[in-house]
Structure formats: structure tokens, C-alpha cells
């Protein structure tokens, strides 16, 4: 569904539409001292709060502009507005991990963050891993190890695995198990997932 359709009957016309990007300021390095004594600003350049915003999400390297209500999660923005359905909604409460994506290279649960909070950020979903026909090593390892059955948790598992390897949490089976435990697999493919992550981590070039 196009985002314009999604909101055409909403309250958009009666509310402020904020270009959320305008509100973002870059936070500079602040000495620890400042933590205890946050400076009180002399003047404020604060844009007005708004219930709807245009945000830019760089999804798998492509800039996508979308107008969303503030209450729309990153997951629902991807799935219901942008047609990016690799990330799955299994629980919508951060309890299953099926919605895991990378934001600026870090794994996060996209159901627990609002799209307006991710403005101007790089979002990588499972759709963005392969290069043409060439699968990412983690994807290839998941097929080789039969690390899924129904496949519903798989995109989240794979995104988590990519991050897990990058974080360096693949030193042992036990470490992989622990650091892959934020992703439930109800088909019960855990041992195969562990082997796939181990294979991909050993294979290098990620």
C-alpha cells in the first residue's frame, strides 16, 4: 500500500506534518563531566511536536521517503507502507526477534522502535544481504545447514546472525547459543542455526 493511501483518510490534514529530519541535531562529543551538569540551553530552536512526519529511511541502500504517524513502528512502516516484508511480525513486543533488522549496522527489533525515531538512518533487512544472485555467507550457511523449517523466524535469525558474527560473539557453540537467544525458532532448528552461524563465522568475508 502506498503511504499516501495509508494516511489519506487519517487526521493528517488537520495536524502538523513535521519534517522530522529538521529536528535532528548531531550530538557532539561531550566530556563525562557534562553528564552531571547538562547545559541549559539559552534559546531553543525546537521544531513543534507533531503527530505525523515525513521520514527518510535508507532501506537496503535506497532512500525511501514515507509519511507516517508518530505511532507507526519501524516494522509496520517497512511492512505496511514500504512493502518490505522480509522482517516479520511474530509478537510485536520484542519477545521473538522475527522483526530483527540492522540499523546503522546494529541489530535491533524493529517492532520496538518508531519509524520517526529512525529518520535518516540506514536500515538493512534480509532483502539487502545478497548481491544479485550471490547469497550472503550467512544465507548460504542457513540453507546448507537446514537452519530453518517454516522460515518465518529466518529473516530475523539471519540478521541477528550477521550482527552476532560482526560483534565477535561466535567463539564457541555456547557463546553463539547465548548471543542468538534473542531470536525464537518455534520449529526448533536451534542446533542447525548454531552450526550455520559457526560455518559463516569461520568462512570469514562477511
Amino acid at each position, binding site marked *: 500500500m502506498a503511504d499516501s493511501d495509508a494516511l489519506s483518510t487519517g487526521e493528517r490534514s488537520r495536524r502538523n506534518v513535521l519534517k522530522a529530519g529538521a529536528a535532528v541535531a*548531531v550530538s557532539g562529543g561531550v566530556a563525562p563531566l557534562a553528564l552531571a551538569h*547538562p547545559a541549559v540551553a539559552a534559546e531553543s530552536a525546537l521544531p513543534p511536536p507533531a503527530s505525523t512526519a515525513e521520514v527518510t529511511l535508507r532501506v537496503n541502500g535506497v532512500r525511501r521517503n514515507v509519511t507516517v504517524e508518530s*505511532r507507526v513502528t519501524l516494522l509496520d512502516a517497512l511492512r505496511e507502507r514500504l512493502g518490505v516484508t522480509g522482517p516479520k511480525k511474530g509478537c510485536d*513486543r520484542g519477545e521473538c526477534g522475527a522483526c*530483527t533488522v540492522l540499523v546503522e549496522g546494529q541489530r535491533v527489533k524493529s*517492532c520496538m522502535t518508531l519509524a520517526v525515531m529512525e529518520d535518516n538512518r540506514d536500515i538493512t533487512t534480509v532483502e539487502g544481504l545478497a548481491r544479485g544472485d550471490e547469497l550472503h555467507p550467512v544465507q548460504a550457511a542457513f540453507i546448507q545447514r537446514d537452519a530453518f523449517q517454516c522460515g518465518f523466524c529466518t529473516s530475523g535469525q539471519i540478521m541477528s546472525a550477521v550482527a552476532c558474527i560482526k560483534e565477535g560473539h561466535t567463539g564457541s557453540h555456547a557463546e553463539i547459543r547465548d548471543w542468538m537467544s534473542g531470536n525464537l525458532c518455534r520449529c526448533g532448528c536451534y542446533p542447525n542455526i548454531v552450526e550455520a552461524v559457526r560455518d559463516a563465522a569461520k568462512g570469514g568475508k562477511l
Partner: protein
Amino acid sequence: MKLFDYARTSRVSDAVGLVAGHPGGAFIGGGTELTNLMKDGVLAPDLVVDVGALALADIGVRKGQLLIGATARMGDVAEHPVVRERFPVISEALLASASPQVRNRATIGGNLMQRTRCWYYRDVGSACNKREPGSGCPAIGGQNRWHAIHGGSDHCIAVHPSDLAVSLTALDATVLTLGPDGRRSIPIGDFYRLPGSTPDQETALRHGELITAVEIPESGPAAGSRYLKLRDRATFEFAVVSVAAALIQAGGVVTDVRLAFGGIATRPWRSAGAEEALRGHPLTQATIAAAGRALVDGAQPREHNAFKVELVQRALADILEDFGGRK
């Protein structure tokens, strides 16, 4: 989820001003807690102010105090070398929390402000005095396996869920805030309130007051501190019972000891009695047992959680015996 206004700012004073100026205003940090509560209809702010871009994410030691910025992410704090080496109980508590994905996002301030996992609180189809004062507490006579044996009242027996808060309680941390009335330093022991007859009032914070940092003294026992968390599956679960312990022995006796507990109380539970039973004594079976007895003195178990009285004593013994170098 109710439609709300959203604002993001890089200035702490703006964030505080915005929320202070709106009775229905709320801060959002990583989003891992507030989004759930809004989806469940437990909280329904009409203004959400994003503090994720505030320059409050630094971690460092200054004048014998570890200072952790409120918007530092749980994962970053857990893996920070200073925290790992000199305040291991904090690192262990954080690594035992949630999942890697959540730890990448959730902030220290947000973690301290997380709400109870009591299912009646999170289910708007049930009554709950914390969510809706005066509506009743079904947990007291209901499914209370996960509920408190300490610190409860006739109005609420919900457990405080933060592992981090337990570790900070053991280390005598101070919560630094900025509110519309200025800055405050709140000892963590005063930060969380007992439910009493007002379980909806959970902390010492006033409306619009923002946690800016947590300060932890680099006391003697911090470097050898440990966290033990027991639960019903290997990981990715809140504590059934947890213990944060920091302890120093000299000349065969305990000279300094800090013990805090999770999963058993309505707020992170420091046990002066258990500490008293150990201080000045050698770590022996007898003193450890005495500490355990002191810990559960006055406990009020309910129909399904009486096991915690026994379990928390065993957890304490287990962690203390580790300090004794044997089990």
C-alpha cells in the same frame, strides 16, 4: 496505540521543558519499553519526546565515580572495559538482561524506568492499582508465582524487573536528574518507592524530570562484585530470583559487603540484615545461613511464590560461597 505528538531534540533542557509543560508528556529513549506499554494501552502519552539524540551517552570514571550517561545503551555499558573490569556486577546484570537486540537499543535511563512485568499491570482487561489506582490487585489472590515476597502492600505486590537497578542498588549508586526545578542527585535507595497505598507512584521522579546519568562510587568491593540470576529458561527472561553481591574480606572476616536482590521485591531490595549478619564475621556455613535468614525475615510469601523464600537464600549462599572460594 493513541496518536501522539512526537518531538526530538538534542538539548536536554528542551526535552525537559517539553515534557514538563505537557501533563501527558513522556520521554522515550531506546523505545524498547514505552512502545510496548503504549501498544498495550497501559500508558497513553499525548506527547513523546525522544531523548535518544541527547549527548548523554558517555561512560567514564571521574574522581572515583563511574559515570554512566542516561542514554548510553545497555550493550555499550555492559561491554565497556572499565565497567567489565572494575564494576563487573553491572556488566553481568546487563548481559543477563533481555536480548542482544534490546541491549543495543535500550538506554540506561530507560532501563531504570522500566515498569513491572506483572501481567495484571500489562493487561488492560484486568484490574490493577498501579495502572488504575483503586481498581484492585488481582495478583494478591491470583497467579502470583512471579510476585514479591518483600516490600508489598495490600495494594500491590508487583516485582521491579530491572537487573541493572539491582546491581546499582548493591553499589550505592546515585541517580542524577534534571527537572523543571533544576538538578537533583537521588541515592538509588531513595529512587524507587515502595508501593504502599500509591503503587502508581513508582519513583522519586517528578513529572518532566529526566535521568541524565548514574554515578557509582568506585568502592572497595565493586571490582569483585558478581551477579547471579535464576530463571525458568537459560536466558532471555526476567529474573525469578537474582542476587548482586559485592564483598571484601580481610584477615579472614568480611569487612565490607553489599547485597541486593531482584525478583523478590517491589523494588530492588537491599538487605541490611543480611549484610549485618556477615560484616565482621568469617564466611562460614553458619554466617551464610544467618545472612539468608536475615534476608527473608519478614517476607510475605503468597500462594504461588513461597518457594522464593527458600530459593533466594540458596542463591545468596551460592554467590557467597563463590567469594569464599569453595562451594
